[in-house]
């Protein structure tokens, strides 16, 4: 039970009071039974990541519990993408730990992390532009050798547009379709935890709203989600809890509903004056 203990310890540092409220709010939210009793799926503890001489993350603590949607918010350059890339094994931390299901995974190379059950839809979508939609999805199932028909059906069920365009070369898709493909591709690896890096980037509000509905559906189907966003309003409406990252440090954390109404958030990220 070391993982639970460590999880609690992390939360104590983040603030006990916040923790208790997180449990209550989550239960109020659409019956999503996410409370302090649910084990932590992902834990970052004192995570520090350097880019050369620059420290991008200055020792952050973050917990994602089984079944949650957790939003990681912050401005450009705050370190959000760095956090996701470190979880995926693309970057090595200088200090601290990444634990997934209680096991340390920092230092595990990226091509093994996906096999542990972490799917990553990267910043800028990064679809394989010269491959077809279907080939992209098959790449998502690379670790299984062959894409299971039920996984393809699931992705096509979530994103009917991709089913219509399965033979189309991915580079010719619209931005929204490419984002759907990037998420669908990550789902093909049957992740327990889905990392989404700015799915709303560069997309029209109506597309963003649709996309976030689908992310909610993916979560309802049982996939835990860590969502990195600059679009704080959208992200917090979907999320159970949120963290706010500023220049490599966690500045605020708590239940999404509270963050959404916090005047500091409204001012900094929702473009409202603190009147």
């Amino acid at each position, binding site marked *: 039970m070391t993982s639970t203990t460590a999880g609690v310890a992390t939360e104590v540092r983040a603030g006990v009071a916040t923790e208790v409220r997180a449990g209550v709010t989550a239960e109020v939210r659409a019956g999503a039974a996410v409370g302090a009793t649910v084990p932590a799926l992902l834990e970052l503890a004192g995570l520090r990541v350097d880019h050369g001489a620059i420290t991008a993350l200055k020792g952050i603590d973050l917990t994602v519990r089984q079944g949650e949607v957790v939003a990681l918010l912050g401005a450009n350059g705050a370190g959000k993408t760095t956090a996701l890339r470190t979880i*995926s094994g693309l970057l090595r931390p200088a200090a601290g730990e990444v634990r997934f299901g209680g096991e340390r995974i920092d230092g595990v190379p*990226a091509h093994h992390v996906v096999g542990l059950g972490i799917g990553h839809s990267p910043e800028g979508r990064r679809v394989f532009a010269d491959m077809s939609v279907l080939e992209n999805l098959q790449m998502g199932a690379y670790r299984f050798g062959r894409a299971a028909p039920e996984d393809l059906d699931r992705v096509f069920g979530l994103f009917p547009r991709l089913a219509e365009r399965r033979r189309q070369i991915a580079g010719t898709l619209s931005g929204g379709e490419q984002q759907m493909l990037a998420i669908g591709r990550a789902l093909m690896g049957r992740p327990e935890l889905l990392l989404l890096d700015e799915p709303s980037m560069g997309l029209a509000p109506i597309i963003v709203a649709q996309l976030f509905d689908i992310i909610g559906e993916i979560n309802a189907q049982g996939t835990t989600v860590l969502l990195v966003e600059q679009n704080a309003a959208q992200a917090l409406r979907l999320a159970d809890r949120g963290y706010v990252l500023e220049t490599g440090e966690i500045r605020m954390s708590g239940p999404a509903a509270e963050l959404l109404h916090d005047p500091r958030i409204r001012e900094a990220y929702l473009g409202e004056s603190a009147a």
Partner: protein
Amino acid sequence: MSPHEFWDYLVPGVALGALYAVIAIGYTLVYGVLQLINFAHSEVFMLGGFGSLIVLTSLTPAHPSAPISVLLVLVGLVVSALCGGATAYGLEKVAYRPLRRRGAPKLVFLISAIGASFFLYNLAGKLFGRDPLPMPHLYDNNVVLTVFGARVTITQLLLLVCALLMMVGLDLLVNRTRLGAGIRALAQDPETASLMGVDTDRVISRTFVIGGLLGGVAGFLFGLNTQVSFTMGFNPGITAFAAAVLGGVGNIRGAMLGGLLLGLVESFNVPLFGEEWRYVAAFVVLVGVLMFRPAGILGVKIGRAA
């Protein structure tokens, strides 16, 4: 040029072109995954030639019967493929991987490639002697068929059939297998490929080996057609590199097309302009095409099928 002469030059041109195509694939595959021209690939080809020469010299009887001849050719193909594959594997491990680990600039890879090439061909000269050696007499190189009056020898037919089989096999491997998907994903976006579970180091190593298998076999076939020597890699290597660039470096079907084209140009250049211009024409064509299509005929893409 009479119509009869046309066919007389077409047949060896196509055979030579097929060979260039097979070597060019080795350059283009490695370029696809590493954006690096493996200038030591000509030595992979040369060592494929020597490997098969040495083994066959010790095995070949004075007058092999037909079944023995077939067997010897198969041995030659397998041995040359293994030598080529092993050389390419070793090159990647020794000359490139340590640089990749350190994130060395591209120029350093180029210098390492040229250094490895010098080392290998001088080593071959020292070990195997500096005089060209003929392949042992595996079969009587008779004319097996005539195309519009042009004679096609066993060696030419063998060369063509082997090259064709290798190209078809490679195309299937790249477009239909899991390893092929890994190679294409890696060529497009190494980082995202690793997020999909592609072990990039392993795929790079296997890509070298595949190119090496093809290059080694090409060395054996080239040796059958002419001779084996420590410098035999130079001209075909440069021409095949030109073929890869001509077709669009990184593009597998482009390399096949470029190889075939340069084989034909080289062959027809001899009657039209004279033997001394044999190796010039390929580069004139290269410069000419690149002036109008800098990315090569089919463009620079490995991920796309054509």
